[in-house]
């Protein structure tokens, strides 16, 4: 009952602060929208210059890149330095700008494809037909998802988990810190409220906002951005609540080691950025083993993987239960440490 009183107070406080409510709803939408458009706007067409007089099949190249003919190599270099082209061809010289590996790879692929097409064109018609047949792609079936899945579809679950993790960490950490700094925590301890009831009250209060965030983020992803997802809403909600729970427990625990808001923010590089890097936004398969082991120490690693399993692979509760239990373990561990840290105020 007393936990509910604490939760009610938190809900009243936060919902009365329009700016914080706005942050909880607008910030995730803004971040997701920016990332969505950034990923959708990757480089797909390269700009190539051909120095006049070079023995190049212009028509063939125009099918692969945006081609421009320049009068001499000096002009080609000037345009490359100005960022107007990604490379140029001058007789047998194939040049790539080279500072951006992603764009360079695209240019190299165009050069390779062009060379292949030229060689095929030089073959007798029968041999060229056979060669084209050899180059035909194999029919590939997607076990999960489909051909229309984009990179954003894969990243969306991790981003959802990360945003909830980050915002709940900050808001709950600052709320608890203010409770300590303003003296209200001492006042709370001069009542029959148990330390555990206080922590549970915080969990319930912020749980309401985690639910709200989940609904907003999920609705935005599905109905506005039209992200591909299996819409098992309640399971996604359960995973997000577990992520929010671990984040809240960690935020309130770390607030015990901060004397002001600024000191709490100093924990972000230690506990939030590693979780952002380990949560699946970057593929960890070929990273050194030490980082893979390290990633196991952060709750969001399990939460984001569970979200991917449910949203991308259509898995059910039974499949993600181990991840949920591990996160529950993290949460109980952080809560136990926090309840212990509160002994500083009252040892019962």
């Amino acid at each position, binding site marked *: 009952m*007393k936990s509910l*009183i604490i939760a009610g*107070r938190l809900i*009243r*406080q936060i919902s*009365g*602060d329009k700016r914080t409510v706005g942050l909880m709803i607008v910030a995730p939408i803004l971040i997701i929208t920016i990332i969505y458009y950034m990923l959708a706007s990757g480089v797909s067409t390269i700009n190539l210059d051909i120095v006049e007089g070079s023995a190049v099949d212009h028509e063939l190249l125009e099918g692969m890149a945006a081609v421009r003919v320049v009068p001499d190599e000096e002009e080609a270099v000037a345009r490359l330095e100005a960022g107007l082209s990604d490379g140029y061809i001058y007789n047998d010289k194939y040049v790539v700008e080279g500072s951006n590996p992603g764009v360079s790879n695209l240019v190299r692929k165009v050069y390779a494809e062009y060379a292949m097409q030229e060689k095929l064109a030089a073959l007798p018609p029968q041999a060229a037909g056979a060669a084209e047949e050899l180059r035909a792609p194999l029919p590939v079936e997607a076990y999960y998802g489909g051909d229309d899945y984009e990179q954003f579809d894969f990243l969306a679950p991790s981003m959802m988990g990360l945003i909830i993790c980050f915002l709940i960490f900050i808001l709950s950490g600052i709320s608890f810190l203010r409770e300590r700094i*303003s*003296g*209200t925590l*001492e*006042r*709370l*301890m*001069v*009542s*029959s*409220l*148990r330390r555990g009831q206080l922590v549970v009250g915080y969990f319930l209060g912020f749980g309401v906002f985690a639910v709200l965030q989940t609904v907003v983020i999920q609705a935005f992803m599905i109905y506005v951005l039209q992200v591909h997802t299996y819409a098992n809403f309640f399971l996604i909600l359960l995973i997000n609540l577990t992520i929010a729970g671990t984040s809240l427990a960690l935020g309130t625990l770390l607030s015990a080691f901060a004397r002001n808001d600024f000191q709490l923010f100093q924990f972000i590089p230690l506990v939030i950025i590693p979780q952002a890097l380990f949560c699946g936004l970057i593929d960890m398969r070929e990273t050194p083993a030490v980082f893979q082991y390290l990633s196991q120490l952060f709750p969001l690693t399990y939460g984001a993987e569970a979200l991917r399993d449910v949203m991308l692979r259509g898995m059910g509760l039974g499949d993600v239960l181990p991840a949920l239990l591990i996160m529950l373990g993290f949460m109980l561990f952080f809560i136990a440490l926090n309840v212990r840290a509160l*002994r500083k*105020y*009252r*040892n*019962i």
Partner: protein
Amino acid sequence: MTCKIEAVDLWKQLGAEQVLQGIDLRMDAGEILGVLGPSGSGKTTLIKCLLGILSLNKGSVKINGTAIPNLKLMDNIGYMAQTDALYEDLTGLQNLVFFARLKGMKRKDAYAQACSLMKMVELSRDQEKKVVNYSGGMKRRLSLATALIGDPGIIVLDEPTVGIDPLLRDLFWQEFHRLKACGKAIIMTTHVMDEAEKCDRLILIRNGRIIRDGGPEQLKAETAEGTLEAIFIRSARQGREGGEAV
């Protein structure tokens, strides 16, 4: 009278400093006890140890014969800290109702008592305003009302009248005397000497020890100047120089 608080041989170390050094204290119901002492003498630490929100290195505190901290006893204590300790993004009334509910009061009773206390501290007109919009004096009044919510038998006030005007101070003291007449035990720390004179009993603390204990008139009679201020200043100076006698 019934003994409300009994503290025996209290020792508390904070960091490298021994803040309390063997304090013994008894206090009865219907008494206003003033705790005097220079800054850093251990007044607030003593109060927190008496409340059970700071653990002791040695010694014990009993309230109504029960050792603290004890959850059941906690609801019978009202505490006003040096800081206002209020939720600034809630209204004054919401603050009071919240603390009343935490003390186990039903919603209706909590609301009724909160309104009555807001009236007592003359904040009725502003009870629906958020605390962030209150002046310093209004916050102190609300903080006092918060300490009184739930009708506690023991009221602990840490410098309750700091930063408030004489009119308001007079209002506070009227309330303290009314509470005393109802049999409440009131402990307060103060730096204001004319306020200390209104207490029934004073203890003077220096370097974590009680160096004087008695009624205001009794203490004044012990000095040539015949004022509490003279005792306080001499005590503070000797504390800085490391002396013991007053």
